[in-house]
Each structure stands twice: as structure tokens, then as C-alpha cells.
């Protein structure tokens, strides 16, 4: 008994101990597994972000390129002149008469067979609700109603101040939403979960309604409809994507032309104008400032409130109207604003220390005679003389266009001694913003917060700045504000506080990079303006997946994008590899692999962490790099038997290519001529220092022209090389949103920490 019991106890104890140890082992193993998943998730996120921002930098470079053309190009042939004029005139903002024309929807007939929603004005709340419902059922709004709605929206927006003032006395709650980027499911979900807008339920949408997602048009329609129905309670801020030039690159232009083949161009023209009339910011109870990007150490709310926001057509180009400039000069207008000398590189403020903009070296390029026929050959000219010459030839050309268009000829005058445009009294023409006004707007639409103190140029995005906690603090104190709400950056949880909870980032596009990549969120401002965050993820599918599956899926998508980038730079990477392989063994050590790849791509990614996903086989801990690169290429080779190096060039510049296509294709017909392509490509390559011979360009152009009819069909071309973004082709992502995985987070008032 005694010994029996003690033996029993002994065994029991041993067993208990064994069980304890076994459990501990399993837990230990499992926690490591989870940690590795978490690391993969973070790396995936870094991949998406670095590629996204690299894309934005490309955009900047592209538009510097067009600015360069405007400033320095002397067309050497009739074809080139015509071609460039098309670019210039395309970018001109619509004159008042043109806008009238665009709003001309009365003549558009709506066929009886049309089963979509019909709008009549003035809009009633029921109409707006019906519109949401119709879109939920995947109906499309007829072009006539689109134009009509945009026209009415514009009429309303024109009356609004730059900074909306909202008071919580009137509505009980205010909900602020961030970027939607064409993701209609998220908007519908927010209305479903939070309730439709009403006099008791105010909403502020903080910009970036369009681009990337596939339902930008529908989102705009819904937002504008509610704005018209509840003008005092429903507010919209402009984002950096409410910009026709950005839209060329990021998919909105494409979406409109795809959905509205006949009237798309009219719609786009009207939108161009509507976007410039969107207010820049919203102020709640004079305490909470809501704007899209952020602030800078120069942000001046008084100036922002006063300026004519309509002057800023696009934040991508400072000079938008060559014609107006010329006219102002012709009139010998003595009203000079403060701006001195030549315009600075488009939005690089002098006060920040920055690498020189691409515009600076252009003067050197001008001196390199014979580099390309687009640059005047012979004796190098000093920049001023050069610019005078160019201006004159372009002016002559524009004059020719004007005459063709039926405007009376203007006597040619002497070159004016100095520069800039300014306020024009003619009601038809629109004045330019001053550089300071320009900078103010760019700052609030493009800036991002950073952890460090100070304020420096946002080189990642190419515009605006990074602002530190001291900048926030100073601004809040200066204007007696409580905190700032901004959007502009995707966050894994849909929101993020920073600067001691004085800055709240709110982002409402869930699954932004990929299904499962992030949650969306919105914030409700309660009494005392305390923020309450609500999160969501508008996709049923993700909730049946385990964490591991979700992460795998997103990761696969990121890795695909990364492999493509690697392929796009194969030649440069090979050069780097060879440097590490002086003995020509064909093998390279892993740490050298990481160094080489980073030195070419400059993405700042944790390459060693990513290595197992990118490099599958190793011999003796070294990589046979030639075959690795070849494998990358194999994934990309299409049926068309395009030479690998050409393909590489295409992939490397695909976003730029697509954007260039759409700019050239000013009538949005979907195709451009070979000549147009060749010209632009030649200019672009020389500007970007891409080493490419004329023959190569011809080859490229010819190989792209699949049916050999002298025209390049844009979509076909991009599709053939699988360059088309998935966003516009309606994948399996969207579902009717259900109330699923959302959690309420109550947050204490900001500044309490």
C-alpha cells in the first residue's frame, strides 16, 4: 500500500512531468512557427511598399521628362513638332467653354433598353441610396447621368471654401474614412456597418477615391450623390490621386475609357475640372484637421484658405499652360508676382537639401551635340539662350495651332526679359499658382509623418515631405488644434497613431495590395472628439483561410512582383554578380548575392530573409547565378519570341510605357502609331540615359506592332507581355461583403500619453 501508493504517485508525477514537458515542447515549436510567419508577413509588406513607392518615383521622373521637353525641346522635324503639340495641348486645362461643352449631357440619349439607375435633379436621398444599391448589384450608370451628376457636383464644389468647416453641433457623429482607391466593396461595407449618410450622420472622405481598384467611377458617383443630397453633412477632401495625370498611370483613366467608350473622353475632361474644385481640407469644430497627406514646417493654413485651389490642376506638373504663359507675356503684363527667374524643378523646394532634379542635368544634355536629333546640334548654347530659342520655336508652333483653330494672329513680340506668369484678368484664361501656393498644396497632399524630429523632402514619393513630431506639435499649437487625421499610407491594421497620438492615419481600402494584405478602418469622432476606430476586411474568402494561408497568398503575390523586378534588371544584376565572381566560377556566395541585388534595385529589402523564397537551389552554399537569372526570364517569355533583353527593357519601364501610351493616345482610342511610339521612346531613353540604339528602337516598335498595321494597340500589347494590372480585370476578389472579422477598438483621447 505504502510503496504501492508512492509508486503510483511516482508514476503519476513522472507522467505529469512528461506531459508538462511534451506540452512545453509543442508550444515552443509552435511559437517559432508563428514568429517565422510574422517575419514573412513583414517582409511581404516591405516588398509591396518599396515597389509601390518606387513606382511613384518613376511617375515623378516621367513628368520631369515631360517638363524637360517643354523647356528644352526644339523639334527637328514636322512630325516631332506635331507629335509634341499633341502632348502639350492634351494637358491644357479645359477652358470655360469646353467645360460647358462637357457638361452638355442633354443631347445624350438614354435608350429604352437601359436598365440601370436613372437620376433626376435635384437629387433626393432615396436616389442616392438607390444608386448604392444599383452598384451593389453591379449595374452601370449611363454616361448621360454620369455627366449630369458631375456637372451638378461641380456647381456645388465651386461654392465651397478650400477648408471645409464642420461642426459637431449639427450632427451627432462624424465618421472619417481614408483612401478607397476604387474599392467599392469597402465603401458599401462602411455604409452597411456604420449606416448611410444622413443629417445625423456626417461623413468626411479624405481623398484618393480613385485609381488602382476597379470601381473608381462608381465610388465617385456615390460620393458625389451623397454630397449633393446632404451638402452640410457630407464632405470630400482632395487626395493626390484626384489628379488627371496621376490617373493616367494608376488606372482610373483606363477604367473610364473601358466603361464609357463613347463618352469617356468627355467624362474625363469634366472630371479633370471637378477634381481641382475639391476642397483641400476639413476642419472639425476648429479642433481636428483632416487632410489627405500631411503637413510641412511651412504649412500655412491661412494661405491655404485663401488661394485659388482651382489653379492647381495637377500636383504633378507646375507649368500646365504654355499658351497662357505666352499670352500673358505677349500682353506685356507688368503684374509680376514674387516668383523670380526660371521656374524651379517642378516641386522640389529650394529650402530642402536634395539630389539635383533631373531637370538640372538637362542643360548638360543640351550641350552634348549629336546625342539625339531632338537636341540642337552644333555649338553648345548657354541655357538662357537655349531656352529662348526653344520657347520661340514652340511658341511659333503653338501660334500655328491657334491660327488653325481660328483664333486671330498675335503679333510676334520681343522676348520678354523675365519670366513668369501671373494673374490674368481675362475670365477665360486661368492664372498660374505661385510657387509658394503650389508648394503648400503639394505638401498637404503628399507628405508622410516620420518618427524623427524635423522636416525633410519626401524622396520616396518624390513630392511633399516627411514631417516629424515637432512639426506636428508646432502646427497644432499655432492653430489651436487637437490632432490631425490624414490618410495616404496603407497600414496593416487600417489605421495607425503616431506623434504621441496627435496624428492618426486612417486607410479604408482593405486588401489593398492583395487579398488578405491588410484591414481597412474608419474613425468616428465622438463627444470631445475622441476617436473610435472601427476595422474591417471586406472579403469573405479571407476568413475561411488560416493565418498561414492568408500570409502565403499575399506573400506569393509580392514575390511575383519582386521576381518581375529582378528580371527587369537582369542585365545590370549579371554585371554585379560577375564583379563578385572574378574567378569566373559561375557561382556566387549568398551574401554577395544579397549585396549585388540590392545595389541594383535599391529597394532596401531584407534580402537574406527573402532568400529562401527567391533562390531555390544551392550548390555548396553558393548560387549558380546564370541559370538563376535564366529561370527568372523563363517565367516571363511570351509566345511572341521577343528577345530577352528587349523584354527586360519593357518590364523595367512598363509603368512608364503605359503612362506614355496613354498620354500620347490623347483621343483615348486605345492605339498609337509606331512613329509616335518611336519618337517618345527615343526622347524618353535619352533623357533617362537608357542606352538604346535607333535600330533597337525600331525593332522594339516593330515587334510590338503585332498585326503589322503601323499601329500599336495598347491593351493588346500590355496583355501580351502580361503587363496589365489585375485591378481592372475584376478578379475573384470581390464578394458581397458580410459582417465578418471586424473589431471595435476604443481609444483614449489623443495627446494623453
Amino acid at each position, binding site marked *: 500500500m505504502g510503496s504501492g501508493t508512492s509508486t503510483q504517485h511516482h508514476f503519476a508525477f513522472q507522467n505529469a512531468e*512528461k*506531459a*508538462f*514537458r*511534451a*506540452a*512545453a*515542447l*509543442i*508550444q*515552443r*515549436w*509552435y*511559437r*517559432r*512557427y*508563428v*514568429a*517565422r510567419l*510574422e*517575419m514573412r508577413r*513583414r*517582409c511581404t509588406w*516591405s516588398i509591396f511598399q518599396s515597389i509601390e513607392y518606387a513606382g511613384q518615383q518613376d511617375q515623378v521622373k516621367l513628368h520631369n521628362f515631360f517638363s524637360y521637353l517643354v523647356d528644352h525641346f526644339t523639334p527637328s522635324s514636322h512630325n516631332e513638332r506635331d507629335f509634341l503639340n499633341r502632348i502639350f495641348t492634351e494637358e491644357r486645362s479645359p477652358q470655360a467653354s469646353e467645360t460647358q461643352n462637357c457638361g452638355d449631357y442633354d443631347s445624350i440619349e438614354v435608350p429604352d433598353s437601359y436598365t440601370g439607375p436613372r437620376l433626376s435633379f435635384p437629387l433626393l436621398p432615396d436616389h442616392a441610396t438607390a444608386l448604392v444599391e444599383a452598384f451593389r448589384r453591379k449595374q452601370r450608370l449611363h454616361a448621360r447621368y454620369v455627366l449630369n451628376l458631375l456637372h451638378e457636383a461641380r456647381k456645388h464644389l465651386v461654392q465651397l471654401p478650400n477648408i471645409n468647416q464642420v461642426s459637431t453641433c449639427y450632427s451627432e457623429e462624424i465618421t472619417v474614412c481614408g483612401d478607397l482607391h476604387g474599392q467599392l466593396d469597402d465603401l458599401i461595407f462602411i455604409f452597411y456597418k456604420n449606416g448611410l449618410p444622413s443629417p445625423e450622420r456626417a461623413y468626411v472622405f479624405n481623398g484618393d477615391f480613385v485609381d488602382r481598384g476597379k470601381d473608381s467611377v462608381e465610388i465617385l458617383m456615390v460620393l458625389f450623390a451623397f454630397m449633393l443630397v446632404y451638402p452640410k453633412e457630407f464632405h470630400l477632401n482632395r487626395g493626390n490621386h484626384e489628379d488627371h495625370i496621376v490617373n493616367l498611370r494608376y488606372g482610373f483613366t483606363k477604367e473610364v475609357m473601358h466603361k464609357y467608350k463613347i463618352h469617356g473622353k468627355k467624362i474625363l475632361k469634366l472630371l479633370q475640372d471637378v477634381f481641382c474644385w475639391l476642397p483641400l481640407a476639413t476642419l472639425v469644430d476648429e479642433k481636428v484637421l483632416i487632410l489627405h497627406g500631411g503637413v510641412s514646417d511651412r504649412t500655412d493654413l491661412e494661405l491655404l484658405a485663401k488661394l485659388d485651389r482651382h489653379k492647381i490642376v495637377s500636383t504633378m506638373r507646375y507649368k500646365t499652360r504654355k499658351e497662357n504663359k505666352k499670352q500673358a507675356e505677349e500682353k506685356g503684363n507688368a503684374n509680376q508676382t514674387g516668383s523670380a527667374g526660371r521656374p524651379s524643378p517642378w516641386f522640389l523646394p529650394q529650402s530642402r537639401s536634395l539630389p539635383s532634379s533631373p531637370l538640372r542635368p538637362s542643360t548638360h544634355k543640351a550641350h552634348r551635340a549629336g546625342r539625339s536629333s531632338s537636341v540642337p546640334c552644333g555649338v553648345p548654347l548657354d541655357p538662357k539662350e537655349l531656352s529662348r530659342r526653344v520657347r520661340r520655336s514652340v511658341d511659333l508652333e503653338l501660334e500655328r495651332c491657334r491660327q488653325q483653330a481660328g483664333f486671330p494672329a498675335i503679333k510676334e513680340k520681343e522676348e520678354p526679359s523675365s519670366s513668369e506668369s501671373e494673374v490674368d484678368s481675362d475670365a477665360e484664361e486661368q492664372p498660374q499658382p505661385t510657387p509658394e501656393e503650389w508648394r503648400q498644396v503639394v505638401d498637404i497632399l503628399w507628405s508622410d509623418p516620420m*518618427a*524623427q524630429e524635423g522636416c525633410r523632402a519626401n524622396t520616396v514619393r518624390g513630392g511633399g515631405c516627411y514631417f516629424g513630431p515637432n512639426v506636428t506639435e508646432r502646427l497644432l499649437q499655432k492653430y489651436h488644434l487637437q490632432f490631425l487625421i490624414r490618410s495616404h499610407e496603407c497600414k496593416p491594421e487600417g489605421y495607425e497613431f503616431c506623434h504621441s497620438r496627435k496624428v492618426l492615419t486612417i486607410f479604408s481600402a482593405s486588401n489593398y495590395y492583395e487579398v488578405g494584405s491588410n484591414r481597412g478602418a474608419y474613425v468616428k469622432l465622438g463627444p470631445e472628439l475622441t476617436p473610435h476606430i472601427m476595422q474591417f476586411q471586406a472579403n469573405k474568402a479571407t476568413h475561411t483561410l*488560416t*493565418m*498561414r494561408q492568408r500570409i*502565403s497568398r499575399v506573400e506569393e503575390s509580392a514575390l511575383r512582383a519582386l521576381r518581375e523586378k529582378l528580371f527587369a534588371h537582369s542585365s545590370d544584376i549579371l554585371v554585379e554578380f560577375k564583379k563578385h565572381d572574378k574567378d569566373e566560377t559561375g557561382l556566387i556566395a549568398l*551574401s554577395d548575392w*544579397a549585396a549585388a541585388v540590392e545595389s541594383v534595385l535599391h529597394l532596401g529589402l*531584407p*534580402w*537574406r*530573409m527573402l532568400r*529562401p523564397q527567391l533562390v531555390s537551389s544551392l550548390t555548396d552554399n553558393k548560387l549558380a547565378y546564370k541559370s538563376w537569372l535564366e529561370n527568372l526570364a523563363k517565367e516571363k517569355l511570351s509566345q511572341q519570341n521577343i528577345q530577352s533583353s528587349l523584354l527586360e527593357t519593357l518590364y523595367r519601364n512598363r509603368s512608364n510605357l503605359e503612362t506614355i501610351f496613354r498620354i500620347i493616345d490623347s483621343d483615348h482610342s486605345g492605339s498609337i502609331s509606331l512613329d509616335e511610339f518611336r519618337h517618345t521612346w527615343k526622347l524618353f531613353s535619352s533623357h533617362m540615359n537608357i542606352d538604346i540604339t535607333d535600330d533597337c528602337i525600331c525593332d522594339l516598335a516593330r515587334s510590338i506592332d503585332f498585326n503589322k498595321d503601323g499601329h500599336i494597340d495598347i491593351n493588346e500589347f500590355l496583355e501580351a507581355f502580361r503587363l496589365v494590372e489585375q485591378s481592372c480585370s475584376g478578379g475573384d476578389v470581390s464578394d458581397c461583403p458580410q459582417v465578418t472579422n471586424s473589431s471595435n477598438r476604443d481609444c483614449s483621447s489623443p495627446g494623453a500619453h
Partner: protein
Amino acid sequence: NLNLLEDGKERKEEVAVAEFHKKIKEAFEVFDHESNNTVDVREVGTIIRSLGCCPSEGELHDLIAEVEEEEPTGYIRFEKFLPVMTEVLLERRYRPIPEDILLRAFEVLDPAKRGFLSKDELIKYMTEEGEPFSQEEMEEMLSAAIDPESNSIHYKDYITMMVIDEN
């Protein structure tokens, strides 16, 4: 000759250390959100584990104590983390658990040798024994491990699946 051997060994170690340093730096930077060479102490476990180590919670706790400041700030600095972590890697401490050992651990919890554990049993062991899971950890494990039809975890298959997934 002995010297040559020693030299070779030393050089190898130098190279290994250099490589470890780069790896550790990379992993650290992923969590260095403010770009100021610090990470939140709550992320250190993830960093250490993603570098190939498999410490228990207790061992992790000790490691953190080594790298923390005299007066804990809630942040770990890279300067302190690097040497400690390098040592860990050089000594090959906290090695991952081989599949067969893991299998045996499950079998200990399944003395009747049925080949599975019921959901309730798993929950009981994981939340009451060893270094207990939090509710979140438990739910996450259940979502992937439990076969909804039998409401049990067939641990052999589970292990196989997880291992494949890792590689």
C-alpha cells in the same frame, strides 16, 4: 602547421561572424520602425526565432534580460542585441526541434496511441500545461490543426503539413 589550421579556423569564424552580423542586422531592421536602431521589446522574440532559434519562453525571457537596458525602456538597442545574438548563433543555442521529437511529444499526450488528440484535449494541454498559450495563440493553432469533421487533430498529418509549409 597547427598555426595554419588555427588560422583557417579563425578566418572561417570571422567570415561566419560577418555573415551572422548581416543576418542579424537585416532581421532587426525589419522591426526597426523608427529607423533609429531600436525595436520594441515585444518583437524581440519574433526576431530571435526568425533567425533560426527555438527558445522556450523562459529562455527568451533570460535573453531579453541580457539585452535590455539597465532601466528597461521598452526598447532594445541594436548595439546590445548584436553581440548577444551573435554569440547565440555561434554557439548554435536553442536549436529547432526535429520532426521526430515533436511527434514523440504529441504521442506522450496521446498515451492510448489513437493517432489523434481531441480538440478539448489539445486545448487543455496547450492552455494549462507547459508554458500556456494565450487565447489568441490557441485559436490560431486550432484554426489550422483541427479537422472540423472529427473535431480532432491528427498530429502526424499536422506536423507533416506544417513542416512542408515552412519549406
